[in-house]
């Protein structure tokens, strides 16, 4: 009899395990819940801004609740995809511009014209919006934009006997200045690096290398998304990376956050970053505002110093009429002067993407961005292909091959072409 009891207990536990399930959460049916995926909530300096957005938006729209979905920067895409795989799609993703092709290919991103009113879309700069298009439809709506700008340390320029108000305009000028800057030591006797270009194994570093290739007038992909690296600009940009490494001007294999750290501590004289990267610098050293200035991206060889358009944007998901309507209200609320003016002036230096904010003095005369003001119009968009992340990572590997890998430029480029072609053929 004992055995039978045990067997019945086993069967009972199996039944409970197999059929146990959570109870669906009860929702207040009168409210629309908008799920917004946002990695910035976990980043220092940004949490309060987004919490205020939630509070103020909900008080203006009492029938809409914001539910944040957060994960670290590197994991947010997987988080959104895993949720969607389980049938739980978010409504909006706060995203880098480079993430758009991946979400569009996955079938998550919706054309913005399906969700936002035309009057709002008309207020966005048409040239900027071209960078968000796939087959003629925009799949992201920018909060703000920026090229990769050149940040430099005015104090270090002075210490090196250089004019702090005359930053380099070309790579040749930069190399001449770097010679003097690299002789400096910081107050603790640490080496000062002259020039920082990120090359670590993360997609954003590849995107930054891509911007450098544009500086030289080179290309990585043609307009049809095919590999197009057999050009002088591409080769000269990679050569420049090798030169910077041979001369020990560039911290090897550094992530953007490493460069921000070195710059904040006065151990890096110049470096390329997204304009909003300055917030990371300021978080490490609040005094950075006093020694930081910006300049337009450098001109290399036969290029015109063109850079790659970068943006923080919203990717929108179609979850039915009721949620689309709420989403439209949310996007229009955030991308407005009321919400973004202070944010762009004080927290995240960047250029607005809507025409109605064009004349805001606090943004146009932002002391940190002033030097790079003209560069926002000298940008180029990379064609959107689903493998963009892979190509960016392969660019990092190429940069590492000619720097820490000590490979010749031609060998490294050949290897890059094989790997990139293999990725593009998938």
């Amino acid at each position, binding site marked *: 009899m004992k055995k039978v009891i045990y067997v019945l207990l086993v069967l009972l536990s199996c039944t409970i395990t197999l059929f146990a399930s959570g109870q669906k959460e009860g929702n207040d049916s009168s409210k629309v819940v908008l799920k917004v995926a946002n990695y910035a909530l976990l980043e220092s300096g940004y949490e309060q801004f987004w919490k205020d957005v939630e509070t103020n938006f909900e008080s203006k729209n009492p029938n809409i609740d914001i539910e944040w979905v957060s994960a670290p920067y590197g994991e947010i895409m997987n988080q959104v995809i895993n949720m969607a795989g389980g049938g739980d799609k978010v409504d909006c993703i706060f995203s880098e511009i480079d993430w758009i092709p991946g979400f569009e290919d996955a079938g998550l991103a919706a054309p913005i014209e399906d969700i936002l009113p035309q009057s709002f879309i008309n207020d966005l700069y048409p040239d900027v919006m071209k960078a968000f298009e796939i087959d003629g439809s925009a799949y992201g709506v920018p909060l703000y934009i920026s090229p990769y700008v050149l940040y430099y340390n005015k104090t270090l320029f002075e210490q090196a006997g250089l004019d702090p108000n005359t930053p380099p305009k070309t790579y040749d000028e930069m190399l001449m200045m770097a010679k003097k800057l690299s002789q400096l030591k910081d107050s603790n006797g640490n080496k000062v690096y002259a020039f920082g270009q990120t090359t670590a194994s993360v997609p954003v570093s590849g995107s930054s290398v891509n911007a450098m290739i544009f500086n030289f007038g080179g290309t990585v992909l043609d307009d049809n998304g095919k590999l197009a690296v057999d050009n002088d600009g591409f080769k000269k940009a990679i050569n420049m990376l090798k030169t910077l490494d041979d001369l020990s001007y560039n911290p090897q294999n550094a992530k953007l956050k*490493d460069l921000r750290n070195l710059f904040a501590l006065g151990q890096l004289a110049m470096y390329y970053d997204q304009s909003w990267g300055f917030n990371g610098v300021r978080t490490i050293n609040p005094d950075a505002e006093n020694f930081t200035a910006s300049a337009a991206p450098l001109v290399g060889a036969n290029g015109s110093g063109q850079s790659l358009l970068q943006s923080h944007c919203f990717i929108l998901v179609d979850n039915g009429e009721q949620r689309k309507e709420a989403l439209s209200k949310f996007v229009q609320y955030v991308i407005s002067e009321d919400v973004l003016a202070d944010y762009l002036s004080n927290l995240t230096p960047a250029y607005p993407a809507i025409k109605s904010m064009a004349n805001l003095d606090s943004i146009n005369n932002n002391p940190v961005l002033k030097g790079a003001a003209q560069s926002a119009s000298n940008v180029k968009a990379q064609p959107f292909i689903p493998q963009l992340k892979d190509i960016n990572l392969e660019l990092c590997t190429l940069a590492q091959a000619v720097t820490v890998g000590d490979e010749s430029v031609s060998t490294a480029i050949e290897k890059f072409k094989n790997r990139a072609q293999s990725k593009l053929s998938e």
Partner: protein
Amino acid sequence: MKKHDIKLSDNSYSFVLTIPATILTAIFIIVPIIQSLIMSFQKYGVKNIISGKPGTWNNLRNYIKLFEANQIPEAAYHTLWFVLFVIILQFIIGMALALVLNREFKGSRFIRSIMMTPWVVPTVISGLIWMWLFQPQYGFAKYFISIISFGNINDLAILNNPETALGGIAIAALWKQIPLTTLLLLAGLQNVPNSSLEAATIDGAGEVRKFVSIVLPYLSPVIKIAMSMSIIENFKQFPLFWTMTGGGPNGATTNFAILSYREAFVSMNLGSGAAVTTIWMLMMIIIVGIYQKSFKVQDMS
């Protein structure tokens, strides 16, 4: 009324008791493995996950592409080099520490307790700690090496050099894993009968002879398990690699775990990620199988 006794044979009883474990194994291990195997022969992307549509069969394309780009051979080399390097040093250092701690001396209990600290630290945190220690501009390792080399080596950048990056990760893995190996070996050492050691001493055996002929044979079951665990742990090592180098520089630390993650969750090509996983799993089964077969546990009864 007649009372009915329900009787179960021992076989039926045993069978019923294994049902929960069988169901759980099938759902959480067998089914995913089969699904992954099927997926490795398919073009299967994020779109398939979200839409629920099955992948399309592409024969061996995922495997061919990975071999053509030399990704599998490179990942296999990095994985095997790492496993071999770590388990050999782990065994030598772990055994040395266990022998020291097996003797009673002042503070030995305290050292035994504190020794386990690295093992308790989550692997990702260990990776971050070591990444900062190895940081090329202001890391402690650079400072330390500069001092002990009397200023001759000032540019140590272990994780930035393709020649040394794998070694840097191996150091972090050893720091984390040696405590457990030491603990297991220490437990084994305390079971070596004193009577055998005393008899050997009376017979004139030296310390080395006693270690080789008595201690090691008694320890062999523990060594076998400890090293099996270590092989598996390091074969599937992901957090240290991802945190410290992300597979770089120049692909020098891309092991199977990193390659699989990059294919599946960065490139969003789950078919290709599954192909890496399949080769990785097969290789691990073969190596652990060979190890289990070739390692003879000595019967000291």
